[in-house]
């Protein structure tokens, strides 16, 4: 695996993404979710909301890097809060 040039931050990132996907799969198996309409303008499933949240988080990090000098951990915290809100009320 050394050819993949792993680093601790990227490994942690992928572990978190994998845990999210496994967690969502277990959640869906234990308590199946359905498409519904929240504050987003479209009706979504849990998976849709996770995808939208992750994509928005990626863009938020890029925007912060391009336009501000903010430390990225602040952006990450805001994105985590946004993702939780999106999954619950989105």
């Amino acid at each position, binding site marked *: 695996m*050394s*050819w*993949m*040039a*792993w*680093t601790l*931050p*990227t490994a942690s*990132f*992928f572990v978190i993404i994998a845990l999210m996907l496994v967690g969502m799969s277990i959640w869906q*198996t234990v308590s*199946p979710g359905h*498409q519904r309409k929240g504050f987003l303008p*479209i*009706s979504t499933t849990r998976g849709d909301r996770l*995808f939208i949240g992750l*994509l928005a988080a*990626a*863009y938020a990090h*890029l925007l912060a*890097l*391009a336009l501000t000098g903010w430390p*990225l951990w602040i952006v990450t915290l805001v994105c985590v809060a946004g993702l939780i809100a999106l999954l619950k009320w989105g």
Partner: protein
Amino acid sequence: MKPYNNKAWWLVLPVFVLVAFSAIIPMMTVVNYSVQDIFDPSTRYFVGTEWYREILSDPRLHDSLVRQFIYSFCVLAIEIPLGIIVALSMPRRGLGVPVSLILLALPLLVPWNVVGTIWQIIGREDIGLYGSLLNGLGIDYNYASSPRDAWITVLIMDVWHWTSLVALLCYSGLRSIPDVYYQAARIDRASAWAVFRYIQLPKLKNVLLIAVMLRFMDSFMIYTEPFVLTGGGPGTATTFLSQTLTQMALGQFDLGRAAAFSLIYFLIILLVTWVFYTAMTHNDDKG
């Protein structure tokens, strides 16, 4: 409520393994590279988000991105309506059907680099059919020195190569519309426009979704044809994102920056494709 039977997911496992090896693992490697100054896996230094900051403020890449969006917009604006018109004009029965299908399929069988070479010759002002014809008509045309001519040639080349795909997809969609719809339209004395607007276009929605997404993704990643035809020139007039990326990764061997750039590139394609998909399937959810 009856619970879902998730056993069918096992059938997806072989595809998942294939995708893991062909896409997910290489992509994870790209993510790893994007945070490092790397020459090979044993010679590397962690630089965090440095490459992303540099890429996002690089005017060369901003220009490539703008060119790429304009190019993809032009491709969609020309090829989608033209593909629909071609499909509507195709015969529905008789010998004309296989003949037109074969003729339309021919450009799709030509490899990308050959398409570039064909148009490089066709567009030449001295011996090319298109180039010498335009110059013979008194129109000053030279794709090697004029950015406008280079753009027009690259666009015409793409239209020549890929409109067939849109037309074939639309034709298959049109053929799947049951005859009763047309019979009902005839009874109502619907005009040709009304038949198109209220029967054919709604029924084509799914194939158009596929066509728009395929053509967007493909045009947004275009590399070989403009590279062979113009080499990205004159100047940087037809240097699109993938060519800038290749110059960075292979020309300068700047793997870390190129990895960061390709991830931003990927995120742009992912977002635009998702927006297209959501916008075009939005009404299905309402129904």
